[in-house]
């Protein structure tokens, strides 16, 4: 798994070539590498947006408006969960508890946790990340 994270950090996704290379390097059948990649949600087999929102929908966040957050993000970005915007800048997915219930409703924006989300905050995050050279998904 640390190897998979490493490659994904560099390449943005896990490709079949990566799977084959890792299988050879670790002397593990490639089918079992693919099993691992498909099992864990943090490994992507398709390219995601430069800025990826993982919105939490579990109980604490749900109680504090996660459904509205999801709806608003869909409205603003005009994509559904699992899709990427045509310009490749944004994508979002719905996930289960991220361990930040005290910040509910929250989401993970690339590497960072962003909480107490409302329309204003979401607008800010989207505009901040529309120009990735300005920020590192801060």
């Amino acid at each position, binding site marked *: 798994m640390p190897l998979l994270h490493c490659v994904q950090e560099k390449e943005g996704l896990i490709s079949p070539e990566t799977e084959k290379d890792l299988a050879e390097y670790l002397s593990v*059948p*490639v089918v*079992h590498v*693919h099993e691992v990649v*498909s*099992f864990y949600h943090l490994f992507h087999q398709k390219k995601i947006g430069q800025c990826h929102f993982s919105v939490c929908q579990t109980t604490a966040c749900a109680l504090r408006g996660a459904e509205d957050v999801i709806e608003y993000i869909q409205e603003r970005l005009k994509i559904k969960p699992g899709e990427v915007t045509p310009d490749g800048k944004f994508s979002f997915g719905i996930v289960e508890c991220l361990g930040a219930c005290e910040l509910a409703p929250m989401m993970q924006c690339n590497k960072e946790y962003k909480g107490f989300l409302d329309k204003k905050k979401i607008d800010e995050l989207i505009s901040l990340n529309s120009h990735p050279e300005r920020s590192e998904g801060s």
Partner: protein
Amino acid sequence: MPNLTIDGKQIEVPAGTTIIQAADKLGIPIPRYCYHPALPVSGNCRICMVEVEKQPKLQIACYTPVADGMVVKTNSPKVLEVRKTVLEFLLVNHPVDCPVCDQAGECKLQDYYMEHGQYDSRLSDVKVKKEKKAFSIGPTVMLDQERCILCTRCVRYADTITKTHEFGVFSRGDHSQLDVYPGKQLDNNYSGNVVDICPVGALTDTDFRFKCRVWYLAQTKSVCPGCSMGCNITVEWDKSRPHQHKKARVMRLKPRHNPEVNDYWICDKGRYNYHFIDENRIQHPQLNNDLISWEQAIDTVVQVLKPLKDLKRTNRIGVLASAQLTNEDLFVIRKFFKETLNGAHLDFKVSEKPGDSDDFLMKADKNPNTAGAAQIIQVSTDAAQIVQKARAGEIDLLYVFGHDLAALYGKEALYQISKNVKLFVFQGSNVNGSCSYAHLNLPSSVYAEKAGTFTNCQQKVQRIWPAFLPMAEAKADWEILSLISAKLGAPINYKDAQEIFKDIAATISPFSEMTYDKISDKGMVLKNLSS
């Protein structure tokens, strides 16, 4: 050794035995999907749960080792309830494809469902759809992901038996999908076995697809004639509807469990090598271009043989026997051509290139009875020489058992033989290159049509049983020789193959303590073999 009680029956088993193994020994049926005796335990289907006294929760029988004094109940109300529960869960997403599924009639979901009375469905919901339905994953196997109950038998088989690692379970939860690695195919020498071990219709045989409903099939025990391994098989043939399948009788072959020979497996070559039983058969005796009767055929042979016998010119007889024949066939060949017609040139090793082999079941020797032939036939002249003599006109009667001499020696050689030999007899089951050059073609039975024995590479004598009568006018090889010998005035008469075998046991010492009963369906090893 621990002593335990299952459903009131006591048994003593070696330490480390699991409950399910002990129950199997006692003949007490415990349902199972993921458990298979040849594969590592997975414990994921949960249907084998049983009640163990003093344990608050039910335990899975496939994984729990027995303990001394353990008391197990496999049919208490709690257990029966849990089985219903597990069945219900398995059927939540299982497409009830029975009307179009080949597994119907031998499906463990169906069987346990009927046994455990899970009749009323509580499901009023959509089923999870999976990606691949009726999808070919290789030349011999089809996959239906929706029917799969994720028992992972195929994954464990590919990991531990063939070690080819084709299968995996991808994603998770009820979106888990069994598949081969994307882009890879299930294409090894033993791919057909996954169809046998799949308890449902997720992995099905392309060769058998939609061919015949299994309840029309009769089963006959036999041994694969494909190589010297002699894997134990069951010939499955359509007993009920002869008008279907354009008169083909055999629908498929299945491996039969023999822990000392092939365990639960068979190679793909052996599995799919049954079409010759019904296709391309020699059906009637034929003299040159004319179909003749058996009486006429026998006469034709005797006409040439009698003078050779009477004038003691048996050295003008050449016989190419075969390690494809049964011990019984070979014994009669020995009696006829070695004793009655003493002086005839006789060999069974006609030069063939060794075939594919591996370190599992496939052997390079593609004959099922080389070891038996070696015991029964004393070679006087080797085959190449016999063929040479035949070409040179030194042979009056050339008797060939099944070999495709055209493929081995070329058309030119066969043309010469045809010209220079007085009577070239080809006795075989299927048409091959020899037939058009032979003067007399005699139809013989295939292995599935006769009783007899083969001796495999482990020196194990194994029985074959006849599934059905010989096709058209074919007869067992030894029967044909019996008829010829009778017409010749030196009859070799046997009632049946068993009687021949008794004689073999009385004559040839490595066979000496064997009888058909003792050999049964597991085989017996030849004894005291000197080099």
